[in-house]
């Protein structure tokens, strides 16, 4: 198909309408299409999903190589330019630059790993096909956002991701909680998206084009003239980003999203949905630097979410939710990375952290999924000591947690430290935003250390007996998820320090872990996990590559040292707190009611519910009003009937009445003639 002239082997440049950038999206789309059209069997579905998501990854990698060798097409067309008149041109083209390429690869990689893992995780699920398709579509949407050079395409991918998250979270739709979580996730993000359309309208109509490059060009020039418009547009965007990235005040949908199967959580949290906000703002970061208001708002939102989420993460009783909150916190970190960059700088800091976060967070979620299958549950009681039997799992979880905590030289450390450095540097230069960011960053560094430490301690805690009672108390994973965490906290059977129940004397038989031992993912899945783990370790080297343009040569050694010391101290503190607790849970020292309300996310949900209630009340009022309107219309016949009855009474069948009518008419007509004359 390809002649030599069309394919340059050195730069891999490809003179052909179909570019790797297209393939990165299309191959992922092919998964749902093929699965829904071709097959009805899970095994075939897995074959398709695995193959095509790998191909998609391959396409992304090819694109990366092209990019490095300078053979990539900068802005390939997608579905063609829309003819919308002279007022605006809608190129709908893609845009390939180094950052987007990197993110694309990361997305493809995570998605592939998730596909591999899902097969094992949902082996006996009748709806595996739908799940795999949704994952494919989800990845495609994210790749579209990453690679798009047109705000409308961004919008397309953006909304599609929301929809896929709805499908994935609601996968086990037999469970009311899953249904509710899916509904909540979609509605909350959709509400936050309402301003997005407006913001994009402002930007693109101002620039008379929806192409990102044109928008950047126009607004960089017109920033002084139309500063307010720019700020308004950016605020709209930030609102939408806060929604998708679960920042304040939209944060509460994310922990609920844990109702979805763990692979879905991995996908949503690691690479795709929550990261999309960072990607989009990264594309427009030059505009962000032009509007201080927007930067401050972004920094505030990110800082508050970051710190608050860190606290909540430490107090969570469900470790999966702990990871969820940590995601919120980490995404806030990325956004700060965008907020603190100085002018004439690109979004590398944020993107770098996005990449590293993608690696270790995917790893952690998949591991939690694995463990949750092993111990059938994700609460502290279940997972306490789960790692004691699986060295492999232990290694990977350790790597993941270290990366999350930002311990050198793991990837998390590199990316996070770069942001902290930048914030410090600009803070010293006297940039207000950077100062807020720096303060928040310090808190977060410590909080992260705290909750990672706590999680680690729980996981490696060595007591078997308590888990028995928990297992008696909750039968299987479905129920675990249905049991209100808070109830579990309050009415668990009391046990003493050695885990013997205070109220029962029967001998406790230790659980036979044989049936647990073989519960580990297949080779493919494990390979994916190991790959992620590897990248979490060495991914930091990426900053040395020309792909990322970050200033790594002058690290602020003192700052690093100080933060490491503090982290160590916090770790020690947590260890001390955990000593003597039943499940090795440091948070157990915190009063119960605090933990309870923290597990509820400080009851933000009730606010959402109240909001929804008010809307429904309004809706009821409107429909009542409409009934009134309708009844009014329907009363017209009756009205005419009464008129007719009146008229009928005038028509006595007497000749005289006719005569009277005639003379009346004569007079009336006469008057009319005279008056109007």
């Amino acid at each position, binding site marked *: 198909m390809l002649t030599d002239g069309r394919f340059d082997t050195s730069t891999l440049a490809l003179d052909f309408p179909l570019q790797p950038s297209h393939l990165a999206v299309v191959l992922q789309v092919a998964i749902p299409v093929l699965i829904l059209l071709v097959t009805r069997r899970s095994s075939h579905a897995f074959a398709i999903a695995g193959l095509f998501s790998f191909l998609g990854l391959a396409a992304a990698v090819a694109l990366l190589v092209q990019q490095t060798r300078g053979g990539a097409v900068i802005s390939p067309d997608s579905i063609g330019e829309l003819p919308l008149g002279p007022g605006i041109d809608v190129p709908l083209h893609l845009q390939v630059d180094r950052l987007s390429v990197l993110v694309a690869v990361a997305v493809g990689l995570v998605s592939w790993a998730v596909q591999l893992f899902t097969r094992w995780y949902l082996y006996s699920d009748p709806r595996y096909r739908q799940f795999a398709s949704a994952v494919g579509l989800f990845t495609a949407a994210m790749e579209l956002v990453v690679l798009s050079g047109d705000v409308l395409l961004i919008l397309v991918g953006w909304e599609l991701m929301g929809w896929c998250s709805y499908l994935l979270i609601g996968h086990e739709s037999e469970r009311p909680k899953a249904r509710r979580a899916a509904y909540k996730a979609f509605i909350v993000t959709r509400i936050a998206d309402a301003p997005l359309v407006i913001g994009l309208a402002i930007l693109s109509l101002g620039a008379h084009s929806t192409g990102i490059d044109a928008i950047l060009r126009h607004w960089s020039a017109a920033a002084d003239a139309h500063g307010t418009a720019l700020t308004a547009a950016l605020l709209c965007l930030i609102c939408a980003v806060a929604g998708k990235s679960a920042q304040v005040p939209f944060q509460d949908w994310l922990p609920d999203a844990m109702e979805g199967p763990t692979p879905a959580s991995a996908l949503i949290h690691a690479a795709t949905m929550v990261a999309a906000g960072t990607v989009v703002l990264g594309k427009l970061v030059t505009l962000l630097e032009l509007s201080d208001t927007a930067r401050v708002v972004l920094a505030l939102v990110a800082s508050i979410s970051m710190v608050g989420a860190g606290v909540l993460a430490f107090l969570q009783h469900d470790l999966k939710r702990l990871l969820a909150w940590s995601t919120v916190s980490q995404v806030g970190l990325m956004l700060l990375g965008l907020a603190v960059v100085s002018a004439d700088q690109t979004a590398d800091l944020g993107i770098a952290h996005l990449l590293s976060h993608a690696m270790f967070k995917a790893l952690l979620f998949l591991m939690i999924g694995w463990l949750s299958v092993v111990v059938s549950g994700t609460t502290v009681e279940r997972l306490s000591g789960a790692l004691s039997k699986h060295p492999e799992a232990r290694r990977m979880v350790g790597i993941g947690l270290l990366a999350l905590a930002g311990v050198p030289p793991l990837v998390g450390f590199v990316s996070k430290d770069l942001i902290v450095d930048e914030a410090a540097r600009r803070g010293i230069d006297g940039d207000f935003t950077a100062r807020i960011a720096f303060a928040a960053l310090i808190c977060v560094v410590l909080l992260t250390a705290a909750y990672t430490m706590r999680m680690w301690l729980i996981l490696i805690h060595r007591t078997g007996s308590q888990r028995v009672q928990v297992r008696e108390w909750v039968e299987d994973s479905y129920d675990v998820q249905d049991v209100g965490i808070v109830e579990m906290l309050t009415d668990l059977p009391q046990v003493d320090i050695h885990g013997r129940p205070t109220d029962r004397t029967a001998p406790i038989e230790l659980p036979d872990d044989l049936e647990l031992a073989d519960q580990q993912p297949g080779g493919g899945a494990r390979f994916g996990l190991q790959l992620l783990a590897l990248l979490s370790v060495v991914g930091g080297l990426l900053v040395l590559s020309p792909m990322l343009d970050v200033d790594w040569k002058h690290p602020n050694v003192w700052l690093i040292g100080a933060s490491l010391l503090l982290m160590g101290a916090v770790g020690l503190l947590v260890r001390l707190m955990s000593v003597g607790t039943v499940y090795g849970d440091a948070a157990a020292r915190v009063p119960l009611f605090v933990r309870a309300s923290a597990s509820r996310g400080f009851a933000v949900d009730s606010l959402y519910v109240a909001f929804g209630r008010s809307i429904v009340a309004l809706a009821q009022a409107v429909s009542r009003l409409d009934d009134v309107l309708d009844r009014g219309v329907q009363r017209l016949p009756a009205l005419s009937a009464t008129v007719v009855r009146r008229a009928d009474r005038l028509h006595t069948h*007497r000749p*005289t009445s006719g005569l*009277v009518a005639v*003379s009346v008419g004569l007079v009336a007509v006469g008057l009319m003639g005279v008056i109007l004359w």
Partner: protein
Amino acid sequence: MIHSALPMIVVGLLFGIGLYGVLARRNAVLVLIGVELMLAAAGLLFVTVGSLTSDAMRAGQVMTIFVITIAAAEIAVALGVILAVFRARGNIDMAQAGERE
């Protein structure tokens, strides 16, 4: 045309009286008489105007004769109908409601 005022007034009176008769009377024959009065008013007006204007065709007088003739024809039909009514009802009360079929 001051000397034409009197006939005009008479015309008005006749027409008014006739109309009143039509409205006030219940007996069909009296109603007929009322109509006759109104027609007479019309005829009078014709004559008056005709006498005032010089018309080659003597339209005024001719029209009066026309009106009288038509009136006669009407009365013929009217009496016939009234007779039928009297046969059917036994009275010729105009204020009595007709029956629906």
